């Protein structure tokens, strides 16, 4: 069964039809990419899925792990995150005034079992949770290669590392489905290659299902199982990388569009 699926998702902003008739599905342990020129509606699609925007029309469904399909259309982002959907942002949204470690620690909060009073009284049980959160956070920082910077301010990191930190933060919520919005934007070729490998490892090591938006065609072609191509909000092609690459409609949409 699909981990994620949408049914005729439509998003309108005033007169702008940002996403039209979005019908996508992502299967367990798949890596699926959404590509398309700037302004095609890719980020908007993410926002419809994660609850940041309530779709104007259509439905979003999530399989929450027990084989049951739940309608999550327009549900609050925090509730969707609690169901195991985590994301990163195209225009990096780290907690600026906080350390690298605190950024990751915070994302553990959604899985915390202790209520406020038990946390404040520092009952042994809370200490245990706090230690566990720290251990998991360091594990994730290790995975993204940021352990040495744990106590630095999040914003003092170079751009590429900030993107990695965002991924670590998303992983700390213990997701089943990870949404990455242009994870390689602003990265140099070497960083991009590392990232491609990193995303592939995530799927293998953590058994994650991944939906990603990307501009860099190379990444997309290398690691995705299937691709959706959006243009002016419409899905103009879908299928395996090979199939999409040769699709005349896709070539037309990308013609003259500079690939960054």
């Amino acid at each position: 069964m699909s981990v994620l699926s949408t049914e005729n998702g439509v998003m309108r902003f005033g007169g702008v039809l940002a996403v039209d008739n979005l019908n996508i599905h992502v299967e367990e342990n798949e890596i699926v990419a959404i590509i398309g020129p700037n302004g095609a509606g890719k980020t908007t699609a993410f926002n419809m899925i994660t609850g940041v925007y309530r779709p104007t029309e259509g439905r979003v469904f999530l399989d929450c792990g027990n084989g049951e399909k739940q309608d999550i259309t327009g549900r609050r982002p925090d509730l969707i995150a609690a169901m195991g959907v985590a994301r990163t942002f195209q225009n990096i949204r780290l907690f600026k005034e906080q350390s690298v470690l605190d950024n990751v620690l915070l994302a553990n909060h959604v899985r915390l079992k202790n209520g406020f009073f038990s946390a404040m009284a520092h009952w042994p049980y809370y200490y245990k949770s706090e230690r566990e959160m720290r251990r998991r956070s360091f594990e994730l920082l290790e995975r993204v290669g940021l352990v040495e910077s744990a106590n630095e301010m999040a914003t003092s990191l170079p751009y590429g590392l900030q993107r990695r930190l965002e991924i670590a933060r998303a992983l700390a919520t213990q997701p089943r489905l990870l949404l990455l919005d242009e994870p390689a934007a602003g990265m140099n070729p070497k960083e991009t290659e590392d990232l491609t490998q990193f995303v592939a490892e995530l799927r293998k090591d953590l058994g994650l299902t991944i939906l990603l938006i990307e501009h860099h065609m190379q990444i997309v072609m290398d690691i995705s199982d299937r691709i959706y191509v959006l243009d002016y909000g419409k899905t103009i092609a879908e299928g395996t990388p090979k199939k999409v690459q040769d699709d005349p409609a896709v070539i037309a949409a990308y013609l003259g569009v500079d690939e960054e």
Partner: protein
Amino acid sequence: MEKRQIKGFVANLNPKKRRNLLLSSISITALLLFLYFSNEGILMGSYGVRVLNLCAVYAVLTLSMNLINGFTGQFSLGTAGFMAVGAYTTALLILPVEIKEKIFYLEPMVPWLKDVHWAGNLGFLGALLTAGVLTAFIAFLIGFPVLRLKGDYLAIATLGFSEIIRVIFTNMQNLTNGSTGIKSIPPIANMWWTFGVMAFFTIFMVRLMKTSYGRAFKSIRDDEVAAESMGISLFRHKMLSFVLSGFIAGVGGGLMASVVGAITPIFFRFILTYDILLIVVLGGMGSITGSIVGAFLITIAKEWLRWLDGGFSLGFVRIPAIAGMRMVVFSVLLMLVILFYRRGLFGGREFSFDWLINSLSALPKRVFSLFKKGGAAK
């Protein structure tokens, strides 16, 4: 056995930690001695004690406001209203029955409160706790409509509720004695009380900010969209912060009532919130130590500048006595401080002995380099 464990604990600390532990112990002992001698009237007169009491109470109120504004990023201006709830609750509970009879002469007091008198320190503790819980409850009720708002809208709404509380209190003649207010409130809040409560809430805040809930507050302040996408329920955490802030403001208001001895609804006008907001901004949004240092600096400065109101001579011109002169000078001073320390004295940081020693030991070098630069310029 216990002793040996403690000894082992101290020996196991690294030298820096041991030094900080020592410095902390010395500071705390000095503070306790200071409190003892001040409270006994040996170090200073009743005026000095009163000012220090006010400092501590303002520190509590600043912590309350910093929690919701500085740590959670919600621009709330309801502090004066919350204080009013706490102050009246405390005053009405600790006021002796004879005094109640005497001051409620326009209209007799409601029967269920007329004969209530929680006497002594224990009674005061009970009254403060009741004040805190009641204020927290009011904050909870107000929070439902207002915490859905953001920024300026939230500020205006909380300010509105604060004024509504004040108007209600002005008109509940048989409960609050209306605009005449309540006087002869027993001065139970000595320095042990004010500094004790301040210490309690300081530790409370430090702890809170070390828990996952404190991190959730700060993440909401830094980026609501990201926080929500990481699974933080915005409303629940804003509400938690708002209610806790209300609790602290209620207790602070109760302390204030006992320190100043007389309260009227006028006392809880917007200007009071503004005073506390100034301390929050000057001390540093999101700094616990900044709140406390700011509260002491501003409260003492305001008292010290009193001589300005009485008229003074600048040598060649004589400035006549103008009421409010002190506030003018005070505001100018504040503006200067804010110009140079845009993020408040402490920014979002906290005081630590490491920081103090580092900056002290760096001082000679900095002064020296200053001279060197001056020499090079010549």
